[in-house]
């Protein structure tokens, strides 16, 4: 379970993937329409879609011959509840501590 959740956070750490989630949050979309919102090459967008689908943040729905991407609200809420933002906050704080102390000059 821990690993699965860590993967989810790696998934949302990428700005393009976050942008995809924002796009799809309002309406189900086809891969082509999603890709048309980005300058990125289409196979790259497909790869992002695949990662988001694998960690269950996106769901695929077949409609005739078309595949639509939908946001998985349940999974997104689960992510929101999780501890990772807390860990990120502490990590940022400790990184700051480390850089402040690396530049520390004892007073003469």
């Amino acid at each position, binding site marked *: 379970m821990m690993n699965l959740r860590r993967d989810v956070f790696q998934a*949302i750490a990428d700005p393009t993937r976050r942008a995809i989630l924002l796009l799809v949050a309002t309406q189900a979309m086809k891969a082509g329409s999603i890709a048309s919102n980005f300058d990125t090459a289409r196979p790259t967008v497909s790869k992002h879609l695949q990662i988001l689908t694998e960690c269950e943040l996106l769901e695929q729905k077949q409609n005739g011959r078309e595949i639509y991407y939908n946001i998985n609200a349940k999974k997104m809420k689960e992510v929101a509840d999780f501890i990772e*933002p807390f*860990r990120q906050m502490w*990590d940022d704080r400790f990184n700051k501590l480390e850089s402040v*102390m690396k530049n*520390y000059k004892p007073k003469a």
Partner: protein
Amino acid sequence: MELKTKIDAKDGEQDLIITREFDLPLELLFKAYVEAEIVEQWMGTKVLKLESKKHGSYQFETTDPKGNKHGFNGVIHEFSPNLKITRTFEMENTPFGVQLEFYEFEKLTDDTSKLTMHVIYESVAMRDQVMQLPFAKGINMAHNRMQEILNQLK
């Protein structure tokens, strides 16, 4: 990038353990918790008072982007240089109560050190609420974006 900070918070318990290894000699790591002007720099807070000794107390104040001031305070119970600090911590005017914090400082090599923070909350519910604060407040950009997404789902 892999985070260097580890958090162990078991379901249904009222405490958590935060560990972090630093590329800093033990003495420098410890100093970061002791001297007011250094605490101000890395915590991004104003230090109104910091008495780094047994029976000492401290008071911090931060100002948020809207200009609101938030107070933090606590009392120091144990102060063993380069080894251990035991203190309480309270966010004023919040429902989160007082937490008890044990900081253990350890030398790893001449240039590296480790901090282990053991934090005990008044209840399981309070611990869980505090852990969710960063998300609620959107401290980190990635998660601000996540909040936008979630808002659209409501």
